[in-house]
């Protein structure tokens, strides 16, 4: 009898560790949800406006690296947002298989009632290596690739995502412009 009980307990332990593993996946989904939810109202920033600023920024502050922040940067910083790392093929907008799960986690989060019906910018950033114009174009293609995967393969409503590329115009760590910490995809909640 004792053996039976310990078997049952061992069985329960297996079930528990299995549900713990599930909880870990849902934790990162919930991390995204918690960071993005709570937008109060619609924001007066359009994706086109933001995109245009990045191009104008290069003309206005030419040179190897920009030392100025984008005009909309302060306003964007106040919004609910989350940074993810997504890896792409070199010099390409093709998402690497090792990042499929990340795209899936974003999809899982965006499908929940907590984020449903809200609008998000998918903003692509590069580090400061290479030419600014080139980085801007590449980031636009990469942001679009992430958005397109989400709205097609993963069924996120088309109208809820707008892609923007900012190249190296809004570095995460301006003191280390070439650092890979600057490469990221930002999800920003721009409201209902």
């Amino acid at each position, binding site marked *: *009898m004792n053996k*039976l009980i310990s078997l*049952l307990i061992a*069985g*329960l332990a297996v*079930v528990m560790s299995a549900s713990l593993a599930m909880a870990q*996946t*849902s934790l*990162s*989904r919930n991390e995204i949800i918690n960071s993005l939810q709570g937008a109060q109202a619609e924001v007066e920033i359009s994706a086109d406006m933001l995109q245009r600023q990045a191009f104008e920024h290069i003309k206005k502050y030419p040179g190897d690296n920009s030392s100025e922040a984008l005009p909309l940067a302060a306003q964007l910083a106040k919004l609910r947002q989350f940074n993810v790392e997504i890896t792409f093929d070199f010099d390409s*907008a*093709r*998402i690497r*298989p*090792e990042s*499929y*799960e*990340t*795209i*899936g*986690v974003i*999809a*899982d989060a965006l*499908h*929940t*009632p*907590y*984020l*449903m*019906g*809200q609008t998000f910018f998918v903003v692509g950033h590069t580090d400061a290596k290479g030419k600014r114009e080139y980085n801007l174009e590449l980031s636009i293609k990469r942001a679009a*690739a992430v958005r*397109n*995967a989400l709205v*097609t*393969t*993963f*069924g996120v409503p088309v109208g809820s995502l707008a892609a923007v590329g900012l190249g190296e115009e809004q570095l995460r760590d301006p003191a280390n412009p070439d650092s890979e910490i600057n490469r990221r995809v930002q999800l920003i909640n721009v409201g*209902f």
Partner: protein
Amino acid sequence: MLRLFIAATAALWLGLAGSAMAQTVGFADAIKILAASCGADIDKYCKSATLANNGIGQCLNENASKVSAQCNTDRVRVAALLEARFAAQAAVFQVCERPARQYCPGVKPGAGHVLKCLLKAERVVGDKCNTAIDLAGYR
């Protein structure tokens, strides 16, 4: 007492087995299987395919005679998992229609408001609606 314990444990097991059978998985858990089982084949045969529009799945399908056996098994499985989750999400409003009317009247539709109301009303909306919400990954 011991008999009761065993009966209770058995009931717990049955319950778990029952829910495990009908379970769906999230998009992340589904697509990571594709990356794990087909990653090498994707890099070999699908260099110009993209994740959008099911491009990777289609490319693997077109190259079915060349990709690994594991990848062939899992690409079909992943497609089915994604479909199952979409179907589960599409089914929620129908399955939960009555509890939504009963417990969430006046909640404005859209933007997940009714679903959030159903989530809050978990204790009264009934097993069918709760299961539908679970299968959709909405909780």
